[in-house]
């Protein structure tokens, strides 16, 4: 007669019991679990002991500690490969496949790119890398991720390239129409709202856009973050993409409101460089733009491979003994 050992999923046990509602639910789950095991344990002498005291709100799970090893251990009973199910923690859900798909999506690097923008005394500094990846394949190293909406407003691209390109072009058209209809330029607030409203109306349909709208209008420098979930945030410093944690690190440590244009450009460039260094989905050329009262100007575009050697030059190795050519007689 097969004696099979089961290991109880620990995820039930470690749940924090805070309200009676939770206690009841946990009890129900445990009950279900126990029921399953009880059926199978008809086989022979398999006993469970656990005590539950609802009043004190303190559950004693000592009886649940089964004697089965967590890993390896005594494999003789599991070695035939079929009689015991491998002990995986399974999520308690009705749609297991959907759950798996979502969890894989969750772990995937989101929006392979690095873009950043920040407001400082002299205006807005905008920078981005130029790599486009399709899964693990680099489809292009020269993508323009800073989109020129009009001569005084820039948009950055992160997420789906086609989505960003198309909707930024569309935004540029709308901004121009606004100018013609109202005889004055549209504000950064207005432009970002136009884009956010469009993206919100397509919410849930699979668009992937994580963009920053940077510009200079009558109120001075403006910076908004807009995404395809419908989010729109006003702020002074943003970084978007899979390389953004690295860029934030460099940006946060070097940021001051009173930077000069050159210092701010160097900060932005370094932030992008460090992000491309550590993030596989970012690379190519680091472009830096400045938006001032007279519109935007492109300050620099540097290959990040070359930037690496300019920041960290190769030290010539100290040679102890050098071989010289033998003199030919």
């Amino acid at each position: 007669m097969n004696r099979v050992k089961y290991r109880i999923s620990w995820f039930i046990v470690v749940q924090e019991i805070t309200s009676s509602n939770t206690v009841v639910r946990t009890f129900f789950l445990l009950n279900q679990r126990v029921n399953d095991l009880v059926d199978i344990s008809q086989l022979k002498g398999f006993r469970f002991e656990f005590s539950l005291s609802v009043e004190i709100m303190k559950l004693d799970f000592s009886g649940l500690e089964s004697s089965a090893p967590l890993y390896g251990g005594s494999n003789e009973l599991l070695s035939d490969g079929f009689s015991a199910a491998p002990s995986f923690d399974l999520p308690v859900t009705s749609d297991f496949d959907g759950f798996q798909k979502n969890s894989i999506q969750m772990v995937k690097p989101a929006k392979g790119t690095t873009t950043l923008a920040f407001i400082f005394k002299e205006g807005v500094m905008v920078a981005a890398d130029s790599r486009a990846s399709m899964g693990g394949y680099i489809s292009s190293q020269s993508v323009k991720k800073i989109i020129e909406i009009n001569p005084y407003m820039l948009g950055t691209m992160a997420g789906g390239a086609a989505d960003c390109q198309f909707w930024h072009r569309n935004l540029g058209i709308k901004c121009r129409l606004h100018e013609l209809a109202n005889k004055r330029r549209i504000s950064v607030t207005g432009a970002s709202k136009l884009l956010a409203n469009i993206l919100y109306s397509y919410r849930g349909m699979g668009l992937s856009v994580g963009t920053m709208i940077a510009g200079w209008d009558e109120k001075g420098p403006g910076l908004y973050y807009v995404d395809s979930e419908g989010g729109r945030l006003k702020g002074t410093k943003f970084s978007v993409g899979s390389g953004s944690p690295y860029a934030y690190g460099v940006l946060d440590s070097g940021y001051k409101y009173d930077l000069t244009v050159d210092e701010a450009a160097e900060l932005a460039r370094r932030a992008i460089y460090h992000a491309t260094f550590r993030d596989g989905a970012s690379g190519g050329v680091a472009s830096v733009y400045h938006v001032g009262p007279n519109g935007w100007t492109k300050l620099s575009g540097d290959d990040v491979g070359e930037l690496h050697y300019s920041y960290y030059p190769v030290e010539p190795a100290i040679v102890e003994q050098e071989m010289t050519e033998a003199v030919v007689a």
Partner: protein
Amino acid sequence: MTKEHANWSPYDNNGGTCVAIAGADYCVIAADTRMSTGYSILTRDYSKICKLADKSFMASSGFQADVKALQKVLSSRHLIYQHQHNKQMSCPAMAQLLSNTLYYKRFFPYYAFNVLGGLDSEGKGCVFTYDAVGSYERVGYSAQGSGATLITPFLDNQLKSPSPLLLPAKDAVTPLSEAEAVDLVKTCFASATERDIYTGDSVEIIILNANGVRRESEQLRKD
């Protein structure tokens, strides 16, 4: 309750590879002529290149039914443009038209991977590369389709030009002559045919320059 998966897909992949190279005063557009489905070959001499305008040629791989529909849409839009403006569309204009056409079917895409090649208004070669939903970029050379991952690294090695994003800008013109570029394309396809089952049979090469259009064909392995 597990989700039911559809047992019919509106798409199929007919395979094939397309390449385009832009030069100082010429443009080379090439595509193999094999059309397959699964492990079968449907035909050995199917043209994937379409003339959209006097100076614009589009080569597309992927699902050929969608490619055919796309070619028809673009040709008819170009005809309307000619009636309205009394001139041919320039290559950059056609490039944007193609991008918009692809994006309008964002939620039921054309399963087509395109390269658009031609001469711009200054007579310089231009190549535009696309993804399935319309994002595009002007580049010096491009490969799309099943053999693209085999050809692109080779072209990077032979033709890699400084990125157009660099500032101060570096000159990005491919230094190759027309004859060398055609030879390079033939080499690309010969190599891709060796290692990609969907590429082979023969390659159709279109060469565009100031004197007009020339068509060449080269036999490839048929296995």
